[in-house]
């Protein structure tokens, strides 16, 4: 038994290392692909033997590396948030995009831009956190006050409704203050024009979020077996849930404030991770991070290729990948009350 556990631990570690290798490879492709394709050798040189004079090296450092890293981080954040949400609520459809988080972040951002137009980068990120928080809180409140609790379909519908409401208010505000263009840009923005500043903010938030997520991972595993069982085993459910919500808020808030609306990553990836790696959230969370990063880096490459030289919002790509998966879930366990 012990041997088996160890070997399966090894397998899991192995799967994750392959994932990480693929992420690194994809980052390389992402950096080399663009308006002017730069070969991988030059990418290597730019990273390890940077020379000021070379234009290609400048492009790589100032534009492409931040972009690729942002894709990695945003993908990982969304996937981890989704994993934590699904584990805590035992709801296969729980995920940031379905719960109106993006609309909430956009809502606060519009308010910020309308009343304090000179808002800084950090300020707008803070606004996104708060907005994301408002949306999640509202959706959870609707769920908890409903007569039959937070069923998957209720969660999804409440997310749609709260999202629509917040979006409507923000479009009125943006029409009135003539911010449609800024907001539209941000919403569809995707990952272009991301600088080192945003990446370093993401790094900072990411460390806090991931440490918190991993610290509750074991408890989330128990919680995913049911609230009663968890209480019976002596866990403090409220504490775990509050920590989990904080994780979701800071990770999605940061991701959304940088990348705008990127749907379905948080929904699909945790399912895939669970399928491959089992039910232990100590493994699901890191694996989700790796796979989420892999998905988004590649989606971003596709987003640049599909209508070159124009960019397609990466959120549209992830939605097209994600919808069939969502439909599959809706046909299966998502359709019935669990």
């Amino acid at each position, binding site marked *: 038994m012990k041997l088996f556990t160890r070997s399966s631990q090894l397998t899991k570690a192995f799967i994750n290392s392959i994932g990480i290798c693929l992420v690194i490879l994809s980052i390389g492709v992402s950096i080399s692909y663009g308006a002017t394709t730069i070969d991988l050798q030059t990418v290597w040189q730019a990273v390890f033997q940077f020379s000021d004079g070379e234009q290609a090296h400048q492009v790589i450092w100032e534009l492409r590396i931040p972009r690729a890293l942002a894709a990695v981080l945003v993908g990982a954040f969304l996937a981890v948030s989704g994993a934590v949400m699904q584990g805590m609520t035992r709801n296969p*459809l729980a995920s940031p995009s379905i719960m109106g988080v993006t609309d909430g972040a956009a809502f606060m951002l519009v308010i910020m831009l309308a009343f304090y137009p000179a808002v800084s980068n950090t300020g707008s990120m803070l606004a996104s956190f708060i907005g994301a928080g408002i949306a999640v809180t509202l959706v959870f409140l*609707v769920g908890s*006050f*409903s*007569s*039959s609790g937070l069923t*998957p*379909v*209720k969660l*999804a*519908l*409440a997310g*749609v*409704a*709260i999202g*629509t*409401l917040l*979006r*409507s*208010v923000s*479009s*009125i505000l943006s*029409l*009135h203050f003539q911010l449609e263009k800024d907001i*539209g840009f941000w919403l*569809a923005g995707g990952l272009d024009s991301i600088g080192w500043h945003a990446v370093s903010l993401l790094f900072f938030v990411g460390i806090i979020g991931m440490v918190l997520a991993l610290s509750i991972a074991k408890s989330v595993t128990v919680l995913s077996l049911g609230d009663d069982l968890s209480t019976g085993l002596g866990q403090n459910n409220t504490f775990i849930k509050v920590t989990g919500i904080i994780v979701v808020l800071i990770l999605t808030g940061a991701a959304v404030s940088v990348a705008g609306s990127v*749907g*379905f990553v948080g929904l699909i990836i945790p399912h895939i991770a669970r399928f491959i790696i089992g039910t232990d959230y100590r493994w699901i969370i890191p694996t989700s991070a790796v796979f989420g990063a892999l998905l988004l880096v590649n989606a971003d490459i596709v987003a640049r290729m*599909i*209508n070159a030289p*124009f960019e*397609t*919002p990466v*959120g*549209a*790509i992830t*939605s*097209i990948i*994600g*919808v069939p998966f*969502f*439909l599959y879930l*809706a*046909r299966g366990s*998502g*359709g*019935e009350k669990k």
Partner: protein
Amino acid sequence: MNTLEKQKRRRFWIIIGILLVGIIVFSFISLHLGAISISPKEVIQTLMGQGTDKQELVLFKFRLPGIILALLIGAGLAVSGTIMQGITQNGLADPGILGINSGAGFAIVLFIYFFQGVIPATSALNTYMLPFVALIGAFTAAILIYTIAWKKGVSPIRLVLVGIGVNAAFGALLTILQLRMDPQNYRQVTIWLSGEIWSANWNFVLALLPWMFILIPIAIKKARNLNVFHLGDDVASGLGTYVERERGVLLFIAVALAGASVAAGGAIAFLGLVVPHIVRKLVGPLHHYVIPISALLGAFILMVADMIGSNLLAPTTIPVGIVVSIVSTPYFVYLLMKTN
């Protein structure tokens, strides 16, 4: 029993009367409001044909077609929602949530995208074509949703979830398509997608009128069958209703109404969902009462919402779909919390 029925019928006619008066009164207010204010007296004079040229232009060319369009679209969406809720026995069904509106919208945007150079967007031909294009899109979406949700029958919950997914897919495709358009069309489509009664002119009124005036009466005539569905499929077939065929016909009407409404009014969400609930509260669940009142109430709400949208923050026009969403999503959330 008989007196109860009589009472209900009286209540029905009273509500119809109130709604009709409301529609007429608010139409006058709506005609009077706007950038160029025309007093109620002048409105009446102009309608009688005694106004100045300028007043005639503003009223007949701009305001009146807008109001009539709002009334038609509101009625269409409300009846469509009522039928869908009746067929699926699901209080949360609505052409918007089920993704039928976004299917119609996608078809229209596709049409504009491919024919933007060939047929001018404002031409009469284009106007009459749009409802048909929307219809194709609406039916494609409906068939898609029904097929995907089918798994030894269609459970209402699965239908709603699949609808949400299909909605998201059409949304993503729309984004990609929109970005390939030229800026002018892009802007127009963006506004239209948030629910705007665009290019309110008589051509559009004429294009929409036959759809509403043929389909809504048929819906009222078929209403009794919807009552039978309420009892469940087994009872319905036991009572001699051809369940599947009638369901098909009614679904056809509902989808067609939604498609035609979307062609003129864009993606107006939640109206078809909320109106039937309010009406059922007023007159009970019998569909031969619910459908006519839904039509009038939907028309009334959309007209008032349009009036609010175009005057509240003037000169900024708020798309009517947004006004409807803000008013109706809280009610939807309330319904969501109550249903099991």
